[in-house]
């Protein structure tokens, strides 16, 4: 179909010529494609959506205009969602259409490239966590945590209760997702207190019991605190036959205690801190665990095999865990996942290599410490609030109302999060560190 000016009025991505269309209709034996729709009249839609088609250039301009309505602020925001500088190599190679426009590797012989990338991603997570099994992605840290709790519950069907213990300082998104996932399994959530930003291990000891199927702790916490007693928390969980689930992120894992060495049974968290950027909260969920829980792992796993030419080859494996085979008894309903984000994250990790990855993690400690110290010098400001080691971010107490301060800072080009009436949270990474001087100066002006 063409309009008077010769421009097609149909989909610009349907390539049929009029002659082709006619030949195809002939072959099928109908006069019009409309005759192929077997839809009863009573449910036919004769209306319009009211969306005019747009040409590519005008649409790109319109969308650029739309996004320009976002204020250009330098973000010192974190709370569990972080962005580091993403090298050009990641954008360039991840956008190769061979990767981007493929799908799940149901035919592994023709999809070795992506399978190898995912295998390498899994392998790097194994190196970072010390746990031998990592899947090739969950949606984000919140859903990964929820899946870990479901796994713990399946493993402990005989337990007298079905409680998951989580820290008092937990991101509201993670808590909310956890609540929704646990509801259907008749599980419950208990919260344990924190002291000065870290786990109150004595209080946790009083709470963990034989009704507990999993104890969850994070390092760094959502407030940026590096947890110092992970091994004790792990012991408490294990003494009560509960799983110990540790939440972290890839950069922190490069520096902080290896999860396997502190007794973690499952590691979850956010991997999108490498390779993705802020992306309005889009994520990449880490899921790693012990070998003995392999059959209970949610999501896709890539394994090694051989092909008929006796060459090493990769394939999706252990698919009987998954929904397309096990249906209502699957370990999870996940199908489409975050594979392409995992590819970007793997590329970013590989680009950094071990030296620069550890350096990046060390900077997350020292930059946060330095920035907190500079803010602490200002009158009416205490930073960090907690007398702890921090990773990337920290809480600031202000004498003046925090919401007013964030408002004023926004007016000076900086985005900082107001946690409560007198608490702010500030996050620094290599992506915004060059603006730290400006932030300190702006702070001085607005308090």
């Amino acid at each position, binding site marked *: 179909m063409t309009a008077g000016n010769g421009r097609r*009025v*149909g989909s610009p*991505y349907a390539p*049929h010529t009029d002659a082709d269309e006619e030949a*195809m209709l002939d072959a*099928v034996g109908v006069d019009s494609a*409309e005759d*192929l*729709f077997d839809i009863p009249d009573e*449910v036919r839609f004769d209306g319009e*959506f009211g*969306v005019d088609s747009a040409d590519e250039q005008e649409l790109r301009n319109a969308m650029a205009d739309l996004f320009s309505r*976002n204020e250009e602020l330098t973000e010192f925001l974190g709370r569990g969602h972080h962005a580091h500088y993403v*090298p050009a190599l990641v954008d360039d*190679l991840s956008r*190769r259409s*061979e*990767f*981007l*426009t*493929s*799908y799940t590797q149901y*035919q592994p012989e*023709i*999809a*070795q490239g992506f399978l190898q*990338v995912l295998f*390498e991603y*899994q392998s790097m997570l194994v190196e970072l966590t010390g746990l*031998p099994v*990592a899947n090739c992605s969950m*949606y984000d840290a919140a859903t990964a945590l929820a899946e870990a709790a*479901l796994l713990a519950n399946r493993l402990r069907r005989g337990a007298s209760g079905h409680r998951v213990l989580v820290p008092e300082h937990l991101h509201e998104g993670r808590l909310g*997702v956890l609540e929704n*996932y646990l509801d*259907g*399994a008749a599980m419950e959530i208990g919260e344990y207190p924190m002291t000065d930003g870290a786990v109150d291990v004595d209080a946790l000891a009083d709470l963990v019991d034989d009704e507990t199927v999993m104890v969850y702790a994070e390092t760094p916490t959502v407030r940026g605190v590096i947890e110092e007693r992970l091994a004790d928390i792990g012991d408490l969980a294990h003494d009560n036959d509960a799983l110990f689930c540790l939440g972290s992120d890839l950069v922190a894992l*490069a520096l*902080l205690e290896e999860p396997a060495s502190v007794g973690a049974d499952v590691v979850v968290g956010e991997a999108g801190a490498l390779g993705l950027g802020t992306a*309005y*909260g*889009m994520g990449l969920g880490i899921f790693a665990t012990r070998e003995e829980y392999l059959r209970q792992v949610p999501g896709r796993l890539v*394994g*090694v*095999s051989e*092909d*008929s*030419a006796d060459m090493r*080859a990769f*394939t999706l*494996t252990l698919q009987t865990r998954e*929904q*397309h085979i096990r249906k*209502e008894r699957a370990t999870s309903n*996940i*199908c*489409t996942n975050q*594979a*392409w984000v995992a590819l970007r994250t793997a590329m970013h990790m*590989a680009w950094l290599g071990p030296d620069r990855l550890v350096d990046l993690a060390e900077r997350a400690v020292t930059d946060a410490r330095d920035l907190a110290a500079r803010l602490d010098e200002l009158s009416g400001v205490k930073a960090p609030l907690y007398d702890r080691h921090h990773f990337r971010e920290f809480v600031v107490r202000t004498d003046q109302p925090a919401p007013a301060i964030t408002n004023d800072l926004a007016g000076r080009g900086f985005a900082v999060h107001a946690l409560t009436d007198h608490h702010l949270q500030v996050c620094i990474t290599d992506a915004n560190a060059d603006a730290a001087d400006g932030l300190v100066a702006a702070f001085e002006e607005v308090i």
Partner: protein
Amino acid sequence: MNFDQARFSRDDEYEPLLSEKDSTTVEVDSEGVLPDDLTRDELTLPALSEPQLARHYTRLSQMNYSVELGPYPLGSCTMKYNPSFTEDVAADPNAGVHPDRSDRTIQGTLGLLHGLQEYLADIGGMDAVTLQPPAGAAGEFTGILVAKAYHESRGDDRSEIIIPSSAHGTNFASAAMAGYDVVELPSDDDGRVDMEALDAAVSEETAALMLTNPNTLGLFERDIVDIAELVHDAGGLLYYDGANLNALLGRARPGDMGFDIMHYNVHKTFATPHGGGGPGAGPVGVVDELAEFLPSPMVRETAAGYEQYEPESSIGKVHGFAGNWLVLVKAYAYIARLGDAGLADASAKAVLNANYLASQIDLEVPYGPFHHEFAATSGERDAADVAKRMLDYGVHPPTTKWPELVSQAMLTEPTEVEDKASLDDLAHAFNAAYADSDEALETAPSKTSARRIDQVSAARNPRLSWRALGDDE
């Protein structure tokens, strides 16, 4: 068409692993940064230069098939062309903001989300849409949680979800995750919902019926109005699995058919790239009565601009933040580019392509009339083997051995993006593979990077990281 996929190999391996190119162990000595007992001892990862990495990943990309290389008619997956410009739009630096930004400072982001909520509501005939679910299965789970919250708000405790046996596996898993018992519904002789069986299955325990329409055989459920009435009369809700929406754009809307809840697979219908397995997005639309239960936050337009809000009886969160933002941007761009006429044309061509392809293949298609996809049967021949042989003809084969209603099924969805010549190539691949000798089928493929891969040894002896390879050698 002749085809040879790239194959980089050495000895008994294809492209070496990163870890085989380099493995560097650094000692973590963070003196002055953190106390020793808070840090790990060492870290082992590959340390490679950027040129080495560029070559590694480019080679791997060449050992991967994709929509831009050729037809990819995986049934139920809607592997259509992903317009290049949508990638550029999503990469706009102004589009990448942190989720903790205040509403006032991200009017562009919220404006796009609001616009997409509206587009999708119109396209599905729904009243309100959440964009938060990060995939189709997450959308199903969200929709079932909404149904549960609705029933509970009325003091109505229901325990069952009815699902046709031919439905996507995610339906069953999502219903079970939400705590429901699954009641499986057999199909009738013509491949559609068996009305008698449905009548017997529906009861006061029925929380919802999950249905795909057209169903997984590509058939429109002609009795949809009666189905809706039956379920509604029993107090249940109707859930629409949007995986096959590409068949209906501009011709029928789930909302008009009586569905109360639906999810959209934007990576299928709205052309966002599948990314080797994701990310997708699974927005959920509902009718007015259910809008108060949608996840938080939603976006609305006020006199002062766009703002986020929590629906009155919200189920809460299904993703840590706002879902898969980059995917949503691309979906918005696709819908805005095509408009009404383009969307309607996409469905017309998708349905024409499926019907034309079916008319050109020698395999029987037992059920019809079908729309955007069809389930052919390879009869006496093993569908998985036929599929492997099709690879040698330079096309991706269909989904095999599913749905189980058709024995040796080859579920085929060419989408609207193939032209006649390409469909003819695809038909040739079907017919040639189908007619090939047993030996040719069993030894296929040979033109792909890897030859037939042994699935059994992969599962019997799982080796899931490069560390596990070391154990063997």
